[in-house]
Each structure stands twice: as structure tokens, then as C-alpha cells.
């Protein structure tokens, strides 16, 4: 078989199309209500976030703690753009095209900022990226809080609702395919080699800094896209949506799913978004029925224990580095 790629891609495409049709039919026939569809939309956005963070943390072996900060950049840039354009001319033609263009602009802005903060920290070996991205996440929140033009602490309100299931689904699908193809390319192999042994990678002539910065910027780009989709789904962008804790939620997804596994990240993004929603309802139910003063903090207590236990007992995550057959290319299965 000369080119397995052409044979494998349609399989993933067919699977995605069937999944898309199934959800659409369930929703259209009222078998699934808007609430569930909303959670599915959120899960799909988290798929973009988790898969792109996996490129940085899982594939390249670096450690970013500010992924949601990049999503924030994307959300604010694209949200400001669409709000501005449709305020100037409410009946601007090609609304969807303008929306997609501003989402991409948000992604590019996030990638540029990712490059700017990735370069100084990725030049070095060690955990500097962790602390720089942690600081970045806090800074970006403070900046949004202090810019009056984008609403300051109130957040950016009145963003037009453009994100729908179709757009988000296509974006998530494209993210998976693009990052999958990147990993299977020679660039992706270079990134993997950095994770396996940075020194050895350098010794065989791989420009480790270049590939680390590349992976980081691409990851930031997709995070920016996800942020833009979020802003146009919830119709607002708020500084607290993009804080450190939110970044850790994405981090838990990739370590729960498996370090370096796109399949794992995708499954975990869905599972944890639904778990999170379930915990919220469950905690409220327990608090209401027993009258105990139980707050939403318990959700994060459970999350943090989950993270610790995954690390202690299954360091490589639930899926490990395994991939679904749908994702793999180039392997004669």
C-alpha cells in the first residue's frame, strides 16, 4: 500500500460525519434537549483545548500552565472584532465569514503572544516554562481586568452568538486532524524526540528551541481559536474564565486521558466536562436535600484529588500513549 494516509483519513471523516449526524438528528427530533447540546458544545471546545495542550505537554514534553490565558487572548480579540464590526454595520454581509476571520485573528494573536513568552523560557531546559506560563495566566487576567474598553472586571458583554454546533464540531475535527498530521510529520517526530530525550535530540542535530517554540505557538493558536468559539457561544468573555484554575482543568484532561494521546485527550475532554456538570448538579442536590453547607469548592477538591491519584497510580494517564485506530496513520493495523 503506497499511501496509507489517503485510506485512513476518510475513516476518521466517516466516523465524524456519523457522529455529527447522530447528534444533529437527536437534537432536531427533540430526543436531546438544548442543555445537553450546550454541554456537548462545551466538550468539543475543551477537545480543542486539550488536544492543543497535549501537543505542548504530551508530545513535546514541555509544561505549560497558562493554556487558558491564550484562550483568553483569542476570546477577547475575536470578541472585540465581531462586536465592533457588527456595531458599525449591523447588517454586514457575510456574517459567518467575518466571524471565522475574527476567530482566526484571535488564534493568530494568541500564537504571537505564545511565541513572545515561549521564546525566552523555551530556550532554557527545565521547568521555566511552567512558571512563566503560570505568571502569564495571572498577568493576562489582570490586564483584561484593567482595560475599560473590553469591560474591565465586568467582562466583554454582548458578543454576537455565532458559535453553533456545526462550527464547533468542524473546528474540533480540524484541530484533531491538523495536530494528528503534524505529529506524524517530520516536525512532529522532532517534537517527540525532544520529549524522549532533549539532549540526544540536540546531539542528532534537531534545533530543539525551534521545535519547542513551534509546538508552543501552534498550541497557543488553537487555544486562541477555542477561546474565540467560547466567547461566541456564551456571548461573553470574562477575566475569571481564563485564570489558572481553568488551565489546570485542561491539564487534568490531558493527564487523565493519557500523555501524548489525542484519543485520550478527546475522550477525557468529554468525560470530564460531563463529570464537572454532573458534580455541580450533584453537589447542589446534596446541599438542597440535606441542608449541609456544601459549596462548589468540593468540586475542585475532587478534581485536585483526581489529579494527584492519576499521577501517583497511573502516571502515564488512563490511555497511556495508545491511540484509536481512527487516529493512527501509517501503521498497518
Amino acid at each position, binding site marked *: 500500500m503506497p499511501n496509507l494516509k489517503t485510506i485512513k483519513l476518510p475513516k476518521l471523516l466517516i466516523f465524524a460525519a456519523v457522529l455529527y449526524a447522530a447528534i444533529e438528528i437527536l437534537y432536531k427530533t427533540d430526543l436531546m434537549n438544548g442543555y445537553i447540546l450546550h454541554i456537548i458544545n462545551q466538550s468539543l471546545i475543551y477537545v480543542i483545548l486539550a488536544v492543543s495542550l497535549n501537543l505542548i505537554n504530551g508530545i513535546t514534553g514541555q509544561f505549560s500552565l497558562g493554556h487558558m490565558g491564550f484562550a483568553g487572548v483569542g476570546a477577547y480579540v475575536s470578541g472585540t472584532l465581531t462586536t465592533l464590526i457588527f456595531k458599525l454595520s449591523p447588517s454586514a454581509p457575510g456574517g459567518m465569514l467575518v466571524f471565522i476571520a475574527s476567530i482566526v485573528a484571535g488564534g493568530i494573536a494568541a500564537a504571537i503572544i505564545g511565541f513572545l513568552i515561549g521564546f525566552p523560557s523555551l530556550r532554557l531546559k527545565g521547568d521555566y516554562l511552567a*512558571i512563566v506560563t503560570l505568571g502569564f495566566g495571572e498577568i493576562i487576567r489582570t490586564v483584561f481586568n484593567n482595560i475599560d474598553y473590553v469591560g474591565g472586571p465586568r467582562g466583554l458583554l454582548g458578543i454576537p452568538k455565532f458559535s453553533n454546533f456545526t462550527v464547533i464540531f468542524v473546528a474540533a475535527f480540524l484541530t484533531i486532524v491538523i495536530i494528528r498530521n503534524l505529529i506524524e510529520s517530520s516536525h512532529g517526530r522532532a517534537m517527540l524526540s525532544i520529549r524522549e530525550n532533549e539532549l540526544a535530540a540536540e546531539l542528532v542535530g534537531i534545533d530543539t528551541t525551534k521545535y519547542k517554540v513551534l509546538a508552543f505557538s501552534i498550541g497557543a493558536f488553537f487555544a486562541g481559536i477555542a477561546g474565540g468559539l467560547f466567547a461566541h457561544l456564551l456571548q461573553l468573555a470574562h477575566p475569571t474564565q481564563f485564570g489558572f484554575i481553568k488551565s489546570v482543568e485542561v491539564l487534568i484532561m490531558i493527564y487523565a486521558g493519557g500523555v501524548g494521546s489525542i484519543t485520550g485527550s478527546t475522550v477525557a475532554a468529554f468525560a470530564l466536562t460531563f463529570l464537572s456538570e454532573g458534580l455541580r448538579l450533584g453537589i447542589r442536590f446534596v446541599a438542597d436535600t440535606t441542608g449541609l453547607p456544601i459549596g462548589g469548592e468540593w468540586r475542585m*477538591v475532587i*478534581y485536585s484529588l483526581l489529579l494527584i491519584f492519576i499521577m501517583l497510580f497511573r502516571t502515564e494517564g488512563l490511555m497511556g500513549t495508545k491511540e484509536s485506530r481512527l487516529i493512527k496513520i501509517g501503521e498497518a493495523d
Partner: protein
Amino acid sequence: MGSIFNAQQIVNGLQVGSIYALIALGYTMVYGIVRLINFAHGDFYMIGAYASYGAFFLFNAFFAGKTGILAFIVLVASMLAGGLIAMLANRLAYRPLRYKPKLSSLITAIGVSMFLEYFFSALPMIGPSYRSFPDILPRVEINLGIATISNYVIIDIAVAAVLMVGLTILVRYSVLGKAMRAVSQDKDAARLMGIDIEKVIGYTFMIGGAFAGVAGLLAGMTYPRIFPYMGIQPGLKAFIAAVLGGIGSIPGAVLGAYIMGLAETFASAYNSLIGEGIAFAILILVLLIRPRGLLGEKTADKI
């Protein structure tokens, strides 16, 4: 309004720097010995503050009016709480992962940090809201003409200085200090020399945690309010201070912390947003210009 560089700001900067220094020492010692950024370190500071708060109300009934005894009890409580929680975190969460990839301990540290913060704010008797810290000692403002200094500021600076001198003596002259330096230089060689590495690491965590606990008490007394998330910002800034001074270096951490405290105070006096961002700007500059920090040692890659 005069210049932002006046005596008042310098004193305030030294006070903030003293608190950062106590936290940064724990970061740098732990990093020096196990190469782990202990994200939960800022939360040891928070626990120290809550422990002293609890101890104050517990013992206030017995020693009402005897300020000296109370202050001593509160100090011991903060040290014990910080030290114990640090040792526990090391024993339960970090030690099982000692020989696993480094990233897993780092992620576990984030988990421990989040757990402590949210568990404390979820507990009904602590809760997520602010609490005002009681005045353990009477507050006195001393007017020096060029600056007005509260006695609390003097206490912060003095307690930090005494503890740092104590730590220097411990690390330089005691057997434990010698063992700590040996383990940070070469773990395997230290083990071959008969040093119980895990014990030394445990003590290092304990000393670092105790220092962070005292910093929590001092911050609680000075600002005077405490809350479960109080450790995040000072923890981050103290870590940056440790990187600035050269992570792994004890004098470096102190130097970095004072520079950081002064820089932040001056910048905040100029503009509050710049004050928030100055730490981050310092971090980026250090990484670009001198990644090993001011007093850090140059390390070569071992092949």
C-alpha cells in the same frame, strides 16, 4: 507628592521583601535538593497563617494579656503547622514519585496546591471568605520624620533576619546542613557516603515549610487579613525571587526577595497595574539575560 523613591517606600519594600525571602528560602532549598518546583509552597504559608489564627483564639483564654507568651505560642504554631504539612506533602505525594519522570512530581505539586486551597475553603469552619487577623501585639506607629514605621514592619524585618541567620548557621555548621549540601550536590554520592537521603529531604521540606508558615503569620499580622487563596500570589512572586537570585542558592533567594520586594513597592507606588506586572517582567528579563540568576551556579549538561 514626592518621588516614589523615598524612605517610606524603602521600609515598605524591605518588609515585603522579608516575607518573600522567608517563602523563597523554602522554594530554593527544596529545588536545590530535589529539583522540584513545589507549587504547594505558597499554601504552606496560608496554613501557617490559619494555624496561628487558630492558636491565638485557643490560647487567648489561658494567657489573656500576656502578650509575650501568646506571641511565642503563635509563632511556634505557625512553624509547626507549616513544617508538618510540608513533611506530609513530601511523604504522601512527592516521595512515591521521586524516581518517576520529573514532570509527574510537578503536576502532583499543582494537585496538592489546589487540594489545600479548595479543601480549606470548602471546610465549613474555615470557608472561602476573608477573616481579619487579630492584633496579637498592640500596634504602634513610630514617626521618624522621613518615614512612619509601624512596629509590625520592624517585627517582620527582624524575625526574617533572625531566622535567616539561624538557617545560615544550620546549613553551614550543623551535620544536617552538611548532609543537605551533600545531597544537593550529588544524590548518589551522598547515598554512598551513608547519608539517609530521604531523611534529609524530609527535613529540608520541614524547614522550608516552617519558614513559609512564619511568613504566613507575619503577613497575617501585618495586613491583617487571611483567606484560603492568600498563598498564590506571594508564592509565585517568591518563586520568581528565587529564580532572580539563582534557584538553589540560599543567599540568592534572600537577595532576590529583597530586590523583588523593593521593585514591587516602587512600581506599585507609580502605577498599580505596573506593580502587578513587574514581577513577571523581572522573570522574563532574568530568563533572557541571565537564566542562572544573580548568584546561581553555572551547570553543565551531563551526558
